[in-house]
């Protein structure tokens, strides 16, 4: 339900739910893109989280936003999963 709501928002291109091992669990994009996004973003999130926690172990990553020319990738990590939403903000 939540995913449907987000998908219905303006400019949202796709939403992917990835589990803690980096395997996409649920997605609205096609298979190849999903696998690509999941693999690459998983590494990025691990790196970002490691960075934040190395500086202060009591801190933790809340969300990560990567804005590029064409779209914006928003990543919200959770305990066991993380959600990726690709949105085109200018639409």
């Amino acid at each position, binding site marked *: *339900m*939540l*995913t449907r*709501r*987000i998908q219905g*928002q*303006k*400019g*949202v291109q796709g*939403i992917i*739910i990835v589990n803690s091992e980096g395997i996409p*669990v*649920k997605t609205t994009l096609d298979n190849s893109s999903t696998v690509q996004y999941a693999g690459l973003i998983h590494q990025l999130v691990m790196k970002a989280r*490691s960075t934040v*926690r*190395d500086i202060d*172990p*009591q801190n933790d990553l*809340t*969300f990560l*936003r990567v804005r590029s020319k064409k779209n*914006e990738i*928003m990543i*919200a*990590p*959770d*305990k*066991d*999963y*993380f*959600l990726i*939403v690709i*949105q085109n*903000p200018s639409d």
Partner: protein
Amino acid sequence: MYSRSLLYVMLQDEEKTVEIGGGHIKGLIKPPDQLKLTEAELKEKITRVLNTQNPHAPDNIVRWTFKDRCFKPCVVDHTIHIFELEGNLVYKNSDEGRRLMLKQGEVEEAGEEDRPDSAASKTDKKEPKITNIFNSCDRATQTLHNPPREINCQTEPPPRSSFSASANQWEIYDAYVQELQKQEKNKEKQKAAPSEKDEKSQKKMMLMETQDIDLNKVSKAAKVLERMVNLNIFDEIAQDFAYYEDPADEFKFPKGTLLPLWKVKYDQAKKLSVTALCWNNKYPDLFGVGMGSYNFCKQGSGMLLFYTYKNCSFPEYIYPTSSGVLCLDIHEERTYLVAVGFYDGSVAVYNLKTEGKEPIYKSTAKTGKHTAPVWQVCWQNDDMDSNHNFYSVSSDGRVVSWTLVKNELVFTDIIRLPVIPCVSNFTACGTSMDFHKQIDYLFLVGTQEGKIYKCKTYSSKILETYDAHHMRVDTVKWNHFHPKVFISCSSDWTIKMWDYTINTPVLTFDLKEPIGDIAWSPYSSTVFAAVTTDGNVHVFDLNINKYEALCQQLVVDKKKAKLTHIAFNPIHPIIIVGDDRGNVNSFKLSPNLRKKPKVRTLTNCRLYAQNEMTCTK
């Protein structure tokens, strides 16, 4: 043997002088014992043979041989060693010679004498060995060693698995935290005796968790993401909200404008109208919207929604109610407690922290619910037993105080509004209520008949009555700062400002349209806003202009919707306005409308006091 012949030969040589002793003697000297030979015998040739046989060596040595068991002659050596001297001349081109030459060359360089005991030359080593300064001589022995033999043995390799992990500071921290938690759990388990039921319920929990994979666990992350997506979409609005100040305000002084920001609406609440608005003090982005219907003929269900302007596409909390919501109030300190009054006369308290959609307390017919719609609820301070309590006013003429005692809602009638014989035979219908901001027990009740009563909570006596309006008093509100001033609005198109010590209104504003709601601003004692059913929002600042609104802005299309409620945000300069289509619009107040009162200096005080005097006249 040859000595005789030699001598004879020598003697044969004539006229040779013989050296005998120390002088020359001429002539032949014959020794006395010389043989006298005849001349024939003298001419005889005697052959003499020289051989190498040693005359002194024995010529028939025999040796016993054990082998043959007889004596055998052995070979006799005929060599006579007369003299032996070992020489130290070495041939140049031989190995030894070359070696010696090299050594001599080195020695000359070093400038040292070559030792006669040159052990090197004796032991035949190529590198010059450094010996100690004392006489050293190498003695080497060779021990017997067994010939080596290879023995191999092959075993099965142990099973291996590669393991990799990273040890960061935070992983270590996590491990410690987990350990701590485990220890605490163990302590708790030790304290509480484990029962079978607990184990069963735990097992059930485990099953549930494995089935529910996605939704519950990602809900938090999804919520954050939804807000981010919304922020992206409504980025301009967020920027306006934070930073935009209308530059035209400088020219339009003293008038101001309202900048439209977010619009929220909920699909399922389309047919309902907004009947109550309330901001949350603790989280200034959260506001509650009560949905119901003012249409007295058609009454249906209602809703209680909570929105945050961080996510304006979907409400944060949704509570469907069986009857239309007419009023709501959020507790000042415990902002998760929400008191709601319904059209059917009951009141309920919701706890936003709990999961369910049901209120934690609800009044029923037994527990003293009102018999008529509840028009206003107000939280008050906790009573002496630190139970929460709130008050409600309803058209049945009662002002009731409800106390949350453990699991129940206990009611106490505070006041019964007086009967007005000329208008109706029933008690007056209370339609609005407000508590004084500073004095806890003082409150005002507005009625259907247009009167306002001032009362105290601990006595059922009415302190004062004000003949306020000709029609029903929709809203009464005390001023947040001034202890004596309150304002009331009514469907008779007027807003009246009162000083509670005076029976007649101090100021009257006629807006020519039925007024839905008024609200004082939390930042200034002279600013208030009103909404009218024609879709206008009026903002007044009495400090600047006592008779006219500073801002009169049409916010909703007149034909489509009527504005019903308004509320000021406690912190930010925004207001929310609800209409009867279920939409809530938010606006930012331009700077002119946000002028805070100046700090009181002596001159200001005097001016203020003078103003007051002129007003009351």
